[in-house]
């Protein structure tokens, strides 16, 4: 019965023009984004290092004046000299020198020296020139990953990563939420337009809901993956990059770990999956409550921006933080943990929380439906909505 109803529900999605608009959007989004992004000049690794070299050089002007009088500054000066020299070597090794292994080794040494400079209190270095400890740890994680996996780093090795992660970052959060809310806005309500056809169909409410959530999730995911595939095929033809084996940083347990792009994508899709189920369940509940398609979108968006409104009003409501977990890219990158000043927010934490919220939604939907059978009519007879 479940699969028969699912087949029908799939047909409902298939004949709905709204679904096809969403499908076209998902199919073209990454392609158009990558085309747009590729028009902008991307900075190669060599150029980045060259900039870093010049910025770092400015530190000497500040250290030079104090290094004779203050011993800590002298120590910092000594390490910074080494850093500067190694940065110069990195620019050469990633460019004309073509020695990627040495580039990585030099990078790791730079990180070590920078951490020592931090331990010395960054004496003599103005705040705007201090490399944050967080950035050092991120760079260290990336370089360790490249060395441990013996990856052949080149000047444009991170290009693919940049495209993919930036594209998915655009999709994650508000945009993905809107897509899901629009997809699910009539998930149950449409039956009211066809109530005499569907009301008496002998299937339990929970089976019906499961079928609907399954079909909508499958639809969204199919076109999301197809969209990424189309975008990637464009990238692979037009952009020189390191492919999916190059690392991306992931925030975990209050630190950053480097994982391959393919792993990052896997985590992201798990996250998208959990968010999809949660938002569709929320849509079911809102359909039951308000019986109105637009209410689903408006209230859904309202819930998403609620933590921002509360924060703007000067309140720190940590219990609202899980609402923001639906921006999986921000969770994975650690951006959300920094933004909400809550280091506990990492991928698995977010997944467990969103999973629990989904279970709570299922319990509410189940209980609501159960209640309709226990209700005793008083002044008016009771009409079954779904």
């Amino acid at each position: 019965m479940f699969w028969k109803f699912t087949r029908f529900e799939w047909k409902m999605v298939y004949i709905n023009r709204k679904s096809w608009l969403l499908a076209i959007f998902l199919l073209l989004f990454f392609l158009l984004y990558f085309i747009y992004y590729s028009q902008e000049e991307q900075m190669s690794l060599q150029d980045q290092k060259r900039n870093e070299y010049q910025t770092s050089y400015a530190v000497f002007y500040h250290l030079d004046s104090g290094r004779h009088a203050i011993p800590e500054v002298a120590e910092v000066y000594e390490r910074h000299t080494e850093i500067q020299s190694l940065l110069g070597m990195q620019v050469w090794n990633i460019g004309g020198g073509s020695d990627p292994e040495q580039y990585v080794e030099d990078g790791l040494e730079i990180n070590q020296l920078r951490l020592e400079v931090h331990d010395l209190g960054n004496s003599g270095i103005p705040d705007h020139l201090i490399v944050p400890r967080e950035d050092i740890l991120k760079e260290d994680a990336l370089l360790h990953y490249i060395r441990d996996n013996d990856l052949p780093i080149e000047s444009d090795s991170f290009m693919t990563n940049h495209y993919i992660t930036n594209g998915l970052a655009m999709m994650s959060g508000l945009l993905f939420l809107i897509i899901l809310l629009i997809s699910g806005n009539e998930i149950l309500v449409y039956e009211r337009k066809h109530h005499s056809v569907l009301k008496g169909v002998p299937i339990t409410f929970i089976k019906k809901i499961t079928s609907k959530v399954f079909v909508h999730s499958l639809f969204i995911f199919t076109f999301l993956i197809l969209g990424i595939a189309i975008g990637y095929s464009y990238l692979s033809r037009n952009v020189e990059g390191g492919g999916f084996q190059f690392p991306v940083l992931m925030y975990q347990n209050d630190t950053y770990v480097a994982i391959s792009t393919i792993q990052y994508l896997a985590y992201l899709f798990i996250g998208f999956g959990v968010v999809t189920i949660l938002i569709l369940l929320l849509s079911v509940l809102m359909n039951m409550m308000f019986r109105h398609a637009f209410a689903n979108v408006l209230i859904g968006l309202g819930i998403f921006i609620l933590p921002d409104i509360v924060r703007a009003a000067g309140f720190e409501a940590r219990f609202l933080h899980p609402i923001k977990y639906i921006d999986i890219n921000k969770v994975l990158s650690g951006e959300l943990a920094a933004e909400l000043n809550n280091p506990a927010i990492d991928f698995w934490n977010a997944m467990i929380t969103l999973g629990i919220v989904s279970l709570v939604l299922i319990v509410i939907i189940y209980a609501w439906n159960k209640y309709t059978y226990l209700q005793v009519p008083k002044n008016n007879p009771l009409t079954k909505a779904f």
Partner: protein
Amino acid sequence: MLKLESITVRYKDKTVLENLSLTATAGEIIGLVAPNGTGKTTLFNVIANFLKPNKGNVTFREKLQYKTEKQEIAIHNQLATLPDQADLFEELSGVEHMKLYADMWNSDKKVEDIYKYLQMEGYVKKKVKTYSLGMRQRLCFAMLACADTPVMLMDEVMNGLDVANVALISRRLAEMKEEGKLLFIASHLLSNLDLYADRVLYLKDGDFIHEQNAQNKNEKYIKLDISPEEYEKLSLVYSLPEDHLYIADHLLCIPTVNMSKEEQLHWMLNVANDENKEVTIGPLGTLEFYEHYYHGDAKAKILGGE
């Protein structure tokens, strides 16, 4: 097979059904007759549990009631309702609608056989948005035929159908009855109900006010179409039997049940001659009962009747 006990549906300012009870058995066609807004659809909604009444129970096969979702599914597995034309999916074809019902009710009936029987081959594979009213109505009936449940509720099943299709569906209804199905049919095609209904129930003021049985067809009446003035005159001249009916200010019906052949002849010759009217003899049909109960019922006189 199906039992309704003391069903009451009451809104703040209106009582739609009041203490209504009914027992129906398999292999029966029950016609339901009443003007619009009298509670036919409400009654069907209660039977299908689309509406929970203020009071009363619906019992299916002596044990199942709409107390839990499990029991509701068990009942719905054996009960289907006729869809409304307006609720069909415009972008789906007729076949897809029929398959939905055949699938959801695990029916053994072949969709193709049904649409061929109902002569829908010419359009059934096209999208519903291209259908005329009559085509849509046939599709609604075809869907129900695909579900093939032991109990079927049909509200205005003949709505929008031409004469040929009314005959076609009437034939199919009779076959369904032969298959042992319990069919409830609410219809305004009153004379059509006479063809296949075992019982016709007349709903008024929240309850059944009359039950017309197929067995009652042996009860014949001498029928004469006369105006109220002619009726007054006739009443003065002749001593009309106590159980005669004067329906809707135009139809005089004199029961023949307790009359001898001579008495019958006497009435037919005298009354017809005096009024110079055509006299017919036969049982009262659904149309006549309908007029009796709903049209001009304020003036209707039931002398010694019910």
